[in-house]
């Protein structure tokens, strides 16, 4: 008999006033008994609506059934057969708008905690030494993957399993893309990302770091000189946007990318044991309302800022951040200044930020995004003290590959144009997917795109 409890079993987590002072993972997940208990809430529906909500089509009821039987390693094999990064997805996927949104149990009560179960299974299998997957015999064809983020790693894993010789080129010194430079340790431990990547290396995926495609070697050279039969571009959306208001180049003003890269990739929270510093003052103002803004705010708090505020021009309802992230941030003492927009950043005599001038906003008619357009409330100008400002209002695709690859069509805003069904670009043998195509989105959508492209590349190359 299924467990008919209406609510999801909460995962264990660090208390808010403890965790906002350390970088250890906030959520500690389920133990075996908790996982079995939650798994029993699954009705194992015949029509499996949850699977259709998953961009990589994890066979959810099947793995959950195995969890109820305590067959955790078998459950892992089910997940891994379609998902290259289960431990990552179990942590950072927005399940509430995907698989869990479609869960029948969610109609009356809360959906099954699919994400938490996926995480449990992945962690269990990694701790208990899962056997590496078995790729098909080498087929003698070579594929290059540009970028080692979620899109690239997924595409690499799928193609390797099909017998391709796969090389992933990463511009930074550590593979993982946004999983290592963007998402903080307290949400996604970096050891875990390393472990996931190692499972790909164990099946023969080659990873070359310090290779900036477009600079160190061009995309054309990969195809023409290095003997690759196809290239997948998953170079992400790494170009930070600024508001274009006065004072953005003052010291103490960071793009979210810089702030988080210093902290996550360069481990600035261990400075001076590590060599890269980051500056966080008493009063940190984070501009933006997405997951990246939440990550920056919670990181600033952990680095000792007394007052951390999120400044967002719309209301909480329009915030693109996941509900869980907003909830965690609030618990940790982050202040939300909603319907507020910075108009100028003010510096002191040394060129360091000291305050942010803001205006209050009201919501007007919906705009092209469907969200209400914020308009300035007359006479609402005020200043907010700040010695650290982090601008987290989004990223665009890095233009390096576009600029160095003739004939590669892009949108006006920089996204690479692809056929959605296949990830094919305007250049033969060149595919693309993830944030470099869509603009900043989620890990799992990028993984889905990597999967789609892997399938299309396989179709193209098995014809040849």
């Amino acid at each position, binding site marked *: 008999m299924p467990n008919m409890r209406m609510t999801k079993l909460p995962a264990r987590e660090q208390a808010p006033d403890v965790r906002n002072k350390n970088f250890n993972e906030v959520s500690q997940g389920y133990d075996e008994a908790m996982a079995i208990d939650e798994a029993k809430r699954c009705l194992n529906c015949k029509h499996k609506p949850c699977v259709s909500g998953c961009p990589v089509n994890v066979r959810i009821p099947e793995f959950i059934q195995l969890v109820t039987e305590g067959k955790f390693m078998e459950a892992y094999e089910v997940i891994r057969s379609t998902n290259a990064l289960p431990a990552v997805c179990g942590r950072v996927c927005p399940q509430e708008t995907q698989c869990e949104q479609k869960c029948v149990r969610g109609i009356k009560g809360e959906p099954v905690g699919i994400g938490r179960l996926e995480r449990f299974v992945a962690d269990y299998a990694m701790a208990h030494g899962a056997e590496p997957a078995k790729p098909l015999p080498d087929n003698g064809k070579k594929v290059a993957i540009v970028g080692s983020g979620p899109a690239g790693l997924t595409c690499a894993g799928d193609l390797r399993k099909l017998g391709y010789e796969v090389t992933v080129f990463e*511009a*930074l*010194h550590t593979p993982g893309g946004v999983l290592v*430079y963007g998402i903080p340790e307290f949400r996604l431990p970096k050891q875990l990302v390393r472990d996931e990547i190692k499972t790909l290396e164990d099946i023969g995926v080659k990873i070359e*770091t*310090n*290779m*900036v495609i477009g*600079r*160190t*070697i061009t995309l054309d050279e990969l195809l023409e000189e290095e003997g690759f039969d196809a290239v997948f571009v998953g170079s992400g959306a*790494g*170009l*930070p946007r*600024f508001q*274009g208001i006065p004072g*953005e*180049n*003052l*010291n*103490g003003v*960071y*793009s979210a*990318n*810089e702030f988080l*890269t*210093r902290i996550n990739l*360069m*481990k600035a929270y*261990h*400075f*001076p*044991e*590590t*060599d*890269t*510093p980051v*500056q966080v003052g008493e009063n940190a103002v984070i501009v933006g309302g997405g997951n990246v803004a939440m990550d920056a705010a919670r990181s600033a708090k952990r680095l000792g800022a007394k007052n951390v505020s999120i400044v967002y021009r719309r209301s909480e309802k329009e915030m693109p951040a996941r509900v869980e992230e907003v909830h965690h941030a609030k618990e940790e003492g982050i202040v939300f200044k909603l319907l507020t927009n910075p108009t100028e950043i003010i510096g002191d005599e*040394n*060129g360091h930020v000291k305050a942010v001038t803001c205006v209050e906003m009201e919501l007007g008619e919906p705009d092209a995004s469907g969200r209400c357009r914020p308009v300035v409330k007359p006479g609402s100008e005020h200043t907010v003290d700040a010695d650290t400002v982090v601008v987290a209002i989004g990223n665009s695709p*890095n*233009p*390096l590959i576009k600029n160095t690859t003739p004939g590669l069509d892009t949108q006006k805003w920089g996204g690479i144009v692809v056929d959605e069904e296949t990830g094919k670009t305007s250049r033969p043998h060149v595919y693309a997917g993830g944030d470099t195509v869509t603009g900043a989105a989620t890990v799992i959508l990028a993984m889905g795109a990597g999967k789609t492209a892997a399938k299309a590349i396989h179709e193209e190359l098995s014809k040849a």
Partner: protein
Amino acid sequence: MYRIVTKRPLHETVTLMEVEAPYIAKKAKPGQFIILRVDENGERIPLTVAGTDPARGTVTIIFQKVGYTTRRLDCFGEGDELLDFVGPLGKASELEGMKKVAVIGGGLGVAIAYPQAKALHDMGAEVDVIVGFRNTDLMILMDELKASSTNLYVMTDDGSNGHKGFVTSALEEQLKAGKQYDHVVAIGPLVMMRAVCNITKQYNIPTVISMNPIMVDGTGMCGSCRVTVGGETKFACVDGPDFDGFEVDWDEAIARGKMYRKEEAVSMERKACNLMDVELQTRRGGN
């Protein structure tokens, strides 16, 4: 890993290294830079490519021991390997069409100015090289510069070579004497580049400068290297490092260069013992 094949001190505080990095050696052009990391806890520091040898697959870097990382780097010897070495980054200098050029370098900037002078000289341009050092002990690349210039003017702050003054005084002297340049290329400390621009502006000579701001990734991802040029924010790592010197907001650039002064001092102090140990061992090892 990237093996150091040659290490040669140019003087007490400046060192030249040739590092094995075949892809970069094949591609790098004057004006471009690399980013390196010495070890697992190391920061990413940008250094301009001072030369390449594509046949041997090596890239030359010249650095001054100013901060923790450069001192640490100087503890590496021939045969040692650097953990990370990535490039070539940034846009190559646009030297096409330059016919009569003054290339001006100050201090370590001389190492960066040298490849530009050489490239221009190889292209057949008339190249006056004006370089400045604090004193004769700190002079670097004199033979190389002589071989790559039409005229070489060397200034010292203390006059120890018989030519007392800054590079700006030598430049001004040439211009006052009626020397015509179609371009000036100035590379060195920000205040030097600004001073050069203040002069060349009066003579209306287009002046290219090379920024060397604080960077993290060097690929356009972080924006740490923001510089205001002509009222617009540019990223030195992808839009530069060369810019029109007349358009640069120098005050902002100077302020941004100082952002981590305090942390740099902390890093040096906290790790000084550790550093001295390694330096001592390096010397004992005979490197």
